[in-house]
């Protein structure tokens, strides 16, 4: 793909978030940087408080000292977080905020709290059972606590005006990203999956206004590129952190072209905007965003009886014309393990070929994956009509 200055800057932020944070601090002296854990923390509230909210990424370094604090059967992302905590690699955050009740994420966060005595770690637990009649009130209450915590951290009030501006900034950025994803699903092959991942991963790090400007610049003048006849695949899963770029590259190298996804560092992040209407209450809108986003793209970490990841996936495959699904499951990710049989059943019933690839934080056996991916591609090719 392209190598524009704007794209280079986005890619740089995605791949070295600490350097971006350092630069941001130089440009914004005295303003705090807050690490937030994926996938549901309302960053708008932190931005409105004048801080930079960074979704803490897996920094893709091998887990060393962190092994002393979490067992090896925790997912790679949380073991990496523990390693970041153990080696001072979370030191660029002035505070860490959590909203998601994942027992592995809490384990890693407790390590961060125990080892980083001067960095406050605040956990506000967003209700995960979203079908309950009391869920909306509980969500609103928790969003209020986040607002209070952001005010406490920055010693400044979070005004409704600042919230509206933050919502508008993130909405605009997500909407622009969504256009790219929608175009890909409709046939545009401009962006490789690794490039798209950089676009989203940088959005998780950067100030949204700055990101939006760079993204618009990176997109400007780039026309759609027609897909070739490789097998069209949908990538599914990989919650909380990004799959390795080399894995994405191998998938396309095997004769597949990625046409859509529901990855966290993909469509899952960009899928829904905060529904703030003209003159509306921004906190109410943020609460609605959380309450409704699971219906827009169901997540196995939430419990909602009428939101089905399996049927969403089948519909998404039909929308994009994908010919196969590759499940990217981080090893030890329990929510994904729970739902995987339901996904498999639904895709089988719909006659959609699929492949489960279990990813690990270290030592991805790419050649083994290549063989399996090639088999999936062959299987999908055989299903094409003879005249195609």
């Amino acid at each position, binding site marked *: 793909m392209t190598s524009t200055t704007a794209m280079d800057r986005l890619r740089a932020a995605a791949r070295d978030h600490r350097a971006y944070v350092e630069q941001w601090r130089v440009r914004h002296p005295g303003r705090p940087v807050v690490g937030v854990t994926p996938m549901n923390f309302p960053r708008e509230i932190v931005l409105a408080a004048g801080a930079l909210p960074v979704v803490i990424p897996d920094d893709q370094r091998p887990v060393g000292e962190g092994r*002393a*604090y979490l*067992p090896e059967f925790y997912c790679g992302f949380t073991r990496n977080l523990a390693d970041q905590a153990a080696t001072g690699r979370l030191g660029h955050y002035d505070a860490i905020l959590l909203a998601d*009740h*994942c027992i592995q994420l*809490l*384990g890693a966060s*407790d390590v961060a709290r125990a080892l980083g005595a001067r960095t406050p770690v605040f956990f506000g637990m967003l209700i*995960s*059972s979203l079908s309950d009649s009391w869920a909306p009130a509980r969500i609103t209450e928790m969003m209020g606590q986040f607002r209070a915590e952001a005010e406490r951290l920055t010693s400044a009030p979070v005004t409704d005006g600042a919230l509206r501006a933050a919502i508008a900034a993130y909405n605009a950025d997500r909407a622009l990203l969504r256009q790219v994803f929608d175009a890909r699903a409709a046939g545009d092959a401009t962006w490789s999956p690794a490039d798209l991942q950089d676009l989203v991963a940088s959005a998780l790090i950067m100030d949204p206004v700055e990101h939006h400007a760079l993204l618009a610049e990176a997109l400007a003048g780039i026309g759609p590129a027609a897909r070739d006849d490789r097998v069209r695949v949908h990538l599914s899963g990989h919650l909380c952190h990004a799959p390795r770029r080399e894995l994405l590259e191998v998938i396309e190298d095997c004769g597949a072209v990625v046409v859509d996804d529901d990855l966290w560092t993909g469509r899952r992040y960009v899928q829904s905007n905060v529904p703030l209407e003209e003159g509306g209450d921004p906190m109410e809108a943020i609460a609605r965003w959380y309450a409704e986003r699971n219906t827009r793209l169901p997540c196995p970490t939430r419990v909602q009886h009428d939101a089905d990841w399996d049927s969403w996936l089948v519909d998404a495959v039909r929308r994009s014309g994908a010919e196969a699904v590759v499940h990217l499951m981080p090893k030890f990710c329990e929510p994904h393990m729970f739902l995987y049989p339901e996904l498999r059943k639904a895709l089988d019933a719909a006659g959609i070929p699929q492949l489960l690839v279990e990813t690990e934080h270290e030592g991805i056996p790419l050649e083994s994956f290549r063989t399996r991916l090639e088999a999936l591609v062959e299987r999908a090719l055989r299903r094409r009509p003879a005249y195609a």
Partner: protein
Amino acid sequence: MTATTTADRSNRLAITRVGGQMIADYWEDLFVAREQGRKIVWYNGGALNPMFQAAGLAWCHGEAFAARLAAQHLEGPAQLAGAEYGYNAELCSYSRTHLGCAVLTLQGTKEPESGVVGLHDRADLASRLPAPDFFVNNYAGCSTGQQWDEVSFRVFGKQVPIFNVSHPFLWGNKPDAGYLSGEEWESASKYVRDQLVELIGFLEAQVGRPFDYDRLSESMTYIKRAAELRREGLDLCKATPAPATFWDWIACVAPINFLPGNQALVDYFQGVKDEIQDRLATGVSGVQDERYRLYFDGIMNWNKLGFLARKFADHGAAVVAGRYIQNAFWQEPQLIDTSDPLLGMAQHYLLCPTNHGNKTLEYLTLRDCREYDVDGIVFHSTRTCRAFTGPQRLLAKAARDQLGIPSIFFEGDVADASFYKEEILDSRLVAMLEAIDIARERGDHKLAGAGATVVGSS
């Protein structure tokens, strides 16, 4: 080859056989509940059984059923059925076993679909579990619990009603947050209590009659008394040598966790306490020639209960306390107001030993290590239970730094025997006991803690 035997130095409480029969009777009763016209609820997490008892239901605690299968070494067919359905072996083995039971139960109502699990197995084992009329999830601490029941709901085709009780994790954000204290504790207690009121409405809708609050009070009165006797018995085990061990209390988990609140339950725990008192009076210990007092952190390795009891006793090691015993199962009975028990029940659900941040767990662990005069800690690194294992390394460090207590880790699992590593436990246990001996000889055991070791924690 000639088999060699060593004398069993464990001296288990005789009364637990009575408990075992009570549990067996309970399950037999559940298996015929459908024929007797009772509605059946499947639930997970905190002990909601008094509410189900008051509502006239039959109840199946999912973890308990998985644990029972594992304890009887009968978990295999359910786990195979789960694997065939698509559940990964790294998934919580309680849930994997229970979901396998759900698959088998469903298959038991239709033509067999599985090529793995034979008809004989299904008839004898997991498929005896009657299908649920509805689910209730009451899982605190571990996020897996709520997802587990949601998936059960989906396995049954979303045709079975489900009710979720959501529990705030007691993280301890505020300076006033502590064990049983602080604004976080108070607000969480009220929040869960309010959900129990909603649950009562759900139960009324399911059974078609008003909820019997008097029956709930009655059941909770028995349970409170049983819990008091249990605590008194636990306190008696602070004596040296200990008259009973962690393994005896493990055998008492099922009765306190899900048997009906009634006089038989009180009588059972009175019997437990009496036997312990009798042992104290006559100088009988839970382990012959007790030399070491250990703390066990981790959820139980159910398929190794008797085996581990004998193994530790063989080394003269009395396991005298553990997070799964001292800090679980109606462990704070003073919180229960039997005339209006909902708040105290809600608080006990919140007091699940996996529902605390590390600061509180550290307080509880070190408190118990001091009170029971513990020499070392054994961490059961429970392979598929991320909830119990998450804080263990921080706890090991705190015990070493603050009490000078060494610890070991061994790998096993709640309900999947394949994860148990015999040689690792053997070698690490021997190493720790030798280290304790050497420290005693030097006179620096349990002092400053400098140089104390954590064996096998990496």
